[in-house]
C-alpha cells in the first residue's frame, strides 16, 4: 500500500507542477526576476501548496500513526548550520541559472526534450558526489 499512496502523492505533485506552469523555466525565472517583467505565478503555486500541507501538519497530532503504519517524522532540531546555508545558496543559484528545481525537472522529462535529460543527469551526478563533499566540509571544519 505504501507504494500506491506514494504513487498517488507523486501523481498529484506531477499534475500540480504541470498545470501550474512550473516546468516552464521562463515562468520560474520570471518570478525570480524582480528587476524585470515580474511574473507572480510562482507565489500562487507556493501559497496554494502550503494550504493543504499546513492542514496536513495540523492533523498529525490527532493521529497516532500514518495510514500505512510506521511513525510520523520527528520535528527536526532547529539547527541552521553551514551546510544548510551553503547548500541552499548553491541550489538557488543553479535554480536561477536554468529555471529548474528537482521536482519540475523530473515532471518535464517526457516533453522537455534532451536538455531536460541532460539537466537531470547533471543533477543526479551532483547528488551522487554530495555526500563526499559533505564529509570533506565536515573534516575541514573539524580541523580549523
Amino acid at each position, binding site marked *: 500500500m505504501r507504494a500506491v499512496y506514494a504513487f498517488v502523492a507523486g501523481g*498529484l505533485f506531477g499534475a500540480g507542477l504541470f498545470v*501550474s506552469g512550473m516546468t516552464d523555466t521562463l515562468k520560474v525565472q520570471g518570478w525570480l526576476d524582480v528587476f524585470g517583467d515580474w511574473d507572480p505565478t510562482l507565489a500562487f503555486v507556493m501559497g496554494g501548496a502550503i494550504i493543504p500541507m499546513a492542514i496536513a*501538519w495540523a492533523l498529525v497530532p490527532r493521529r497516532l500513526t500514518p495510514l500505512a503504519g510506521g511513525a510520523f517524522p520527528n520535528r527536526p532540531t532547529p539547527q541552521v548550520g553551514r551546510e544548510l546555508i551553503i547548500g541552499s545558496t548553491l541550489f538557488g543559484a543553479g535554480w536561477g*541559472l536554468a529555471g529548474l528545481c528537482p521536482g519540475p525537472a523530473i515532471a518535464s522529462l517526457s516533453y522537455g526534450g534532451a536538455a531536460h535529460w541532460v539537466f537531470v543527469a547533471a543533477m543526479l551526478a551532483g547528488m551522487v558526489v554530495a555526500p563526499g563533499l559533505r564529509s570533506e566540509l565536515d573534516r575541514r571544519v573539524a580541523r580549523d
Partner: protein
Amino acid sequence: MEQDWIWGLIGGLLIGTGGAVYLLANGRVMGASGILGGLVDGSERHHWRERTAFLVGVLLLPVLLYPLYGTVDTHITESWPVIIVAGVMVGIGTRLANGCTSGHGVCGISRLSLRGIVSTVFYILAGGLTVAVFRHLLEWI
C-alpha cells in the same frame, strides 16, 4: 496569460495535496530532492519501492495531461554548459541543504520549520541574484 495565477493556485493546491497524502499516509515529508537523492546515493535503500512509485507518479501524470495542452514549451536555455553547471549545482546544493523547493519550501514553511524558512530565504535570494546578474547586469555591462 491572465489566467496564469489561477492555474498556479490550482497546481499549488494539487502539489500541497500530494504532500498531504505522502505525510498522512506514508508518514514522510514530500521532498523531490530527498526522494531522488536517497535513491541515487544509496543512503536510503530501504523505502526504495515507495520512492520509485512516487517518482513514477511525478513523471507519468504530465504524460497523461499533455494531450490536453497540445504543446508545452519549457523555454529551457539552449546552452548546454549552463544546463550542466546548473544541474550539478542543484544536485549538490539540495543534498547539502537536505531539501529543495518542495521539502524546505512547501513542507517546511507549512510547519513553520526554521530550517525550511531559512533555506527558502537563501535559495530565493541566490536565485534572484543569479537572474539579476544574467538577465540585467551582464547585458548592461
